[in-house]
């Protein structure tokens, strides 16, 4: 073997083993499950919080591995806090348009407390000063006011598979909590707070055409993307502050003797680090003990469904730290039940939670913008002091944010570019847990701080002038408990925004915040549930488990998921994903005709047994009366999907028909002694014996069924209620007349 051939062989072997996510000639090698990620970044940060100025003073040692075959001549960093520097940053500009951004949009921002980060110095460890080489760039929109991405040109490039160590000094001014990060009085939620290196991707990685940095600006609707690493962070705060952070249990704690304490947190195999501090937290620590929380039956069931051995199903113990507001103390058990439920089911379904700790933060009033966020081993939830048990809050948000440990933390897709892969998968998973463990949620209206069961259905849209900022005025609410499942909540947003954008696009490219939410959370939930109903629960469970196992500690793409589905099911389901991911088309099947007419008597000239017979209507032999029943199902939407049609006859007989759903309509005809009563469309399924489920992506459920004879009772019942409501409203108003 020549030296050249030897070198080529070694290089090919390395490519095959070391870069398993790469594709070669369109074939995807089977990915080996990873126990740990490839460590690309190692951060050691010392930070001091000044609670008076709300500033952080930090020093950071970053070691970055160039895990590519490229020579890297520049580095790019996220400086997320600069999103809150002025009203012209990309984040704030987008937040101003169409209500983008968090909560109430930009109106919730405190314009007296801006946030920003100054990188005071950067130098190669024990080497050259790079401070003068730093410059802001705007790779997404060219907005010159945006300083959320910084580029540093290196005097010496980083060679392939080489490392570079940098020493960075920075000062961060925290904004008052608006979106995710900041302060509120003496509460601090410190996230996206340090100079954080972007992701260097080689050509071919995640479908890239050319190698380069993936380091997007901070957008109002986008989240994050980073390489896995090790974080060793020393946080100095006033001694009376309670601190929680990624890593959970402090490695060491040191009283500095000047009224401050330094706490060290350490965590491996994660791609971000966030922390919180406040003197007011109640800190509650409990342990998720797997053998107490997960029964043998649970494990046996999952072994059966997933076809995996016991050791791959069993879960590990987790220490859970809850930092809760004193006013929410009565909800501690609700929080822990939700957390334990999440650890159990996410673990059973997708694989055990690999970290030893989880920290859950309950933000105070005035800092709700910091709630409902996910960071590795550290999540923020949120609740109200008056939270009836029928409202699944804090349960819903807690389970959802924990779920991000799996969909974002462990399967680390690029949230900037394919938000549905974490938000959508997580919403799908959260909904299944909520339905399985908690049952239905209930609609509530908040009436001046009081939760009242009900659902607003009528409101007045006032003219902008002179009612600027008033919004719609509630006029009518149905003030009773209406149970709904999590997917129904998502469906309500989906049908309102289904046609705005196709799902596959970058987070900031959607028309508005509603479209972002619909396409990142709601539609993915529904399309995954639709897929589940089609494949069957067990097959879908294997799909999801396989996808998670393949891409744990990796950065998958949408195509990776589609390939996994096709692999596991042995089907080619591209027809489905093409329709629901790449277009904004909608699905709508309707039963448009259900009729039964008596079969007309034979009349005319018939050739029978070689003889010609003339029949008149009134000389027919007496016999059983027959009816010809017709049921027509139409595809009103553009998206096609297999359907099942359930037809009920007067004698109680049920007939189940299957239709591939591709034509525009299909008529089923029967001649029977009984008439048809009704027909209803359900989702098609691979399993003929499966129960009936609606096609959750259908935008109109009311037309999914039809009766032969109308029944006016429901309309009468609700109209009389409505009449009564109008009478009361008018009478009440007459008091002011």
């Amino acid at each position, binding site marked *: 073997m020549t030296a050249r051939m030897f070198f080529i062989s070694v290089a090919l072997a390395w490519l095959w083993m070391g870069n398993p996510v790469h594709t070669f000639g369109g074939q995807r090698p089977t990915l080996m499950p990873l126990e740990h990620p490839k460590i690309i970044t190692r951060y050691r940060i010392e930070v001091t919080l000044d609670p008076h100025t709300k500033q952080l003073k930090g020093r950071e040692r970053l070691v970055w591995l160039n895990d590519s075959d490229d020579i890297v001549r520049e580095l790019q960093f996220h400086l997320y806090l600069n999103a809150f520097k002025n009203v012209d940053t990309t984040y704030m500009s987008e937040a101003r348009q169409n209500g983008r951004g968090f909560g109430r949009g930009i109106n919730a921002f405190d314009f007296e407390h801006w946030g920003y980060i100054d990188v005071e110095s950067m130098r190669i460890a024990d080497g050259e000063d790079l401070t003068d080489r730093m410059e802001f760039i705007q790779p997404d929109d060219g907005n010159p006011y945006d300083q959320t991405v910084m580029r540093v040109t290196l005097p010496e490039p980083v060679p392939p598979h080489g490392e570079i160590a940098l020493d960075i000094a920075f000062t961060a001014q925290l904004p008052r909590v608006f979106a995710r990060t900041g302060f509120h009085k003496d509460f601090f939620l410190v996230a996206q707070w340090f100079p954080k290196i972007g992701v260097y991707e080689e050509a071919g990685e995640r479908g890239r055409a050319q190698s380069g940095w993936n380091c997007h600006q901070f957008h109002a609707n986008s989240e994050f993307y980073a390489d896995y690493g090790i974080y060793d962070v020393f946080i100095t705060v006033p001694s009376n502050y309670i601190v929680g952070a990624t890593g959970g249990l402090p490695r060491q704690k040191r009283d500095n003797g000047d009224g401050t304490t330094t706490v060290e947190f350490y965590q491996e195999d994660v791609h971000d680090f966030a922390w919180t501090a406040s003197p007011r937290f109640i800190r509650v620590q409990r342990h998720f003990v797997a053998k107490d929380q997960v029964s043998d039956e649970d494990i046996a069931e999952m072994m059966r469904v997933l076809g995996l051995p016991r050791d791959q199903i069993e879960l590990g113990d987790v220490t859970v730290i809850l930092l809760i507001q004193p006013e929410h103390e009565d909800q501690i058990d609700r929080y822990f039940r939700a957390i334990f439920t999440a650890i159990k089911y996410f673990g059973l379904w997708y694989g055990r939670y690999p970290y030893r700790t989880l920290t859950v933060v309950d933000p105070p009033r005035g800092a709700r913008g910091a709630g409902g966020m996910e960071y590795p081993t550290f999540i923020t939830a949120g609740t109200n002091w008056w939270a009836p048990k029928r409202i699944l809050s804090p349960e819903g948000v807690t389970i959802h944010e924990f779920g991000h440990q799996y969909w974002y933390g462990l399967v680390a897709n690029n949230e900037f570019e394919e938000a549905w892969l974490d938000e959508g998968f997580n919403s799908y998973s959260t909904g299944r847990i909520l339905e399985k463990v908690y049952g239905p949620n209930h609609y509530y209206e908040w009436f001046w701080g009081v939760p009242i069961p009900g659902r607003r259905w009528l409101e007045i849209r006032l003219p902008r002038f002179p009612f600027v900022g008033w919004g719609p005025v509630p006029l009518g609410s149905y003030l009773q408990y209406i*149970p709904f499942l999590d997917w129904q909540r998502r469906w309500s947003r989906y049908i309102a925004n289904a046609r705005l954008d196709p799902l596959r696009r970058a987070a900031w490219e959607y028309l508005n915040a509603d479209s972002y939410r619909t396409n990142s959370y709601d539609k993915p939930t529904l399309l995954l549930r639709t897929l589940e109903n089609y494949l069957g629960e067990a097959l879908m469970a294997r799909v999801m488990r396989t996808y998670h196992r393949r891409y744990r500690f990796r950065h998958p793409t949408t195509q990776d998921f589609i390939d996994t589905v096709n692999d596991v099911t042995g089907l080619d389901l591209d027809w489905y994903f093409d329709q629901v991911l790449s277009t904004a088309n909608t699905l709508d099947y309707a039963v448009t005709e259900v009729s039964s007419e008596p079969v007309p008597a034979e009349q005319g000239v018939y050739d029978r047994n070689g003889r010609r017979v003339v029949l008149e209507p009134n000389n027919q032999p007496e016999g059983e009366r027959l009816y010809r029943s017709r049921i027509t199902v139409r595809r009103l939407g553009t998206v096609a999907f297999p359907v099942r049609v359930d037809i009920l006859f007067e004698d109680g007989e049920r007939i189940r028909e299957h239709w591939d759903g591709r034509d525009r309509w299909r008529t089923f005809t029967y001649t029977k002694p009984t008439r048809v009563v009704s027909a209803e469309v359900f989702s098609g399924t691979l399993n003929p014996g499966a129960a009936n489920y609606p096609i959750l992506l259908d935008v109109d459920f009311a037309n999914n069924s039809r009766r032969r004879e109308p029944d006016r009772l429901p309309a009468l019942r609700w109209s009389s209620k409505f009449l009564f409501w109008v009478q009361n409203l008018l009478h009440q108003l007459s008091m002011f007349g």
Partner: protein
Amino acid sequence: MIAGNQPDAIRPWPVHAVASSEEEIAEAKPGAPRPPWALVKSGFAGANTQLRLACLLWAINLVFALVVAIPFFHLLDESLSRSLIGQRSLRFPDANWLIGLLNSQRSFLDSLSATLVWIALFYMVLNALVSAGVLEILAGGSRFSFRQFFQGIVRHGGPFLRLFIISLVAYFLVFLLFHDLLEKGLNALSRDWYSEAGAFSLYWAKNILLAVILLGTVMIFDYAKIRVVLENSPRAVLETAKAFRFVRHHLRPTLLVFYGLGLAGAILTLAYLGLDALFAPTSLGLVILGFLVQQLYMFSRMWLRVAFYVAEMELYRERGH
């Protein structure tokens, strides 16, 4: 000077028309004001003698409501009658149906709410005129007749419409001061509070204050209307001012009568809600029964409204000098 400005021009109170018993007639001596509870009772008795008036108010209310409810019935009929989702929505609304309806019929519902606003406005204007007829009949102490009813409208319709406009301005100001501006102030005050319960208490104190002042304003305009009729005065602004002065001078009895009758209304509503919770209208018979109970309740509210006018008018007659 017009007659209405002179106290002695107040039209005499026909005691026989409203007193429910011989004892009360005996109690109702001129110059000896009765306690508020007696006035409340007297209001009920007076309303009992004016059932036709309550009937008229109920009928007007029903006709106006039907204008909005009939298109709504057609909407529901189209949406529910042929679909199996209708059967599933009999007991309580099926979430899928409700969500779908709200989405697909958004423009219909928007136009429905706009129609409702206009109808409500028209109803309020009409109600101002109807009140003139009602108070004219009550002031005369006679039984209901359309002739007297319309005479009242013709005689006092102008001032009542002016009172209506003044009252709208007053309600707007009350709302602006005690809701909008006060809330802005409270927002600023509680912005940095950690305590949700503290902020909640603060906002509810504001809400209660707003409700008390709004109801107080309603009461003042009730007395303004009574003054216009009894004093035969066309001067709406002046009568409003005098009504305000009257309420201020007789705060306790006016409030007790007002809230006493309000309490009766609350009991009535609770009774209805109790009945409503007893059965779910899942058959035609039960739907009809439910409708009858609802209309009975609405009639009772009209009857109570007449009772309000009777009791307040009696109070004014007794203490208005």
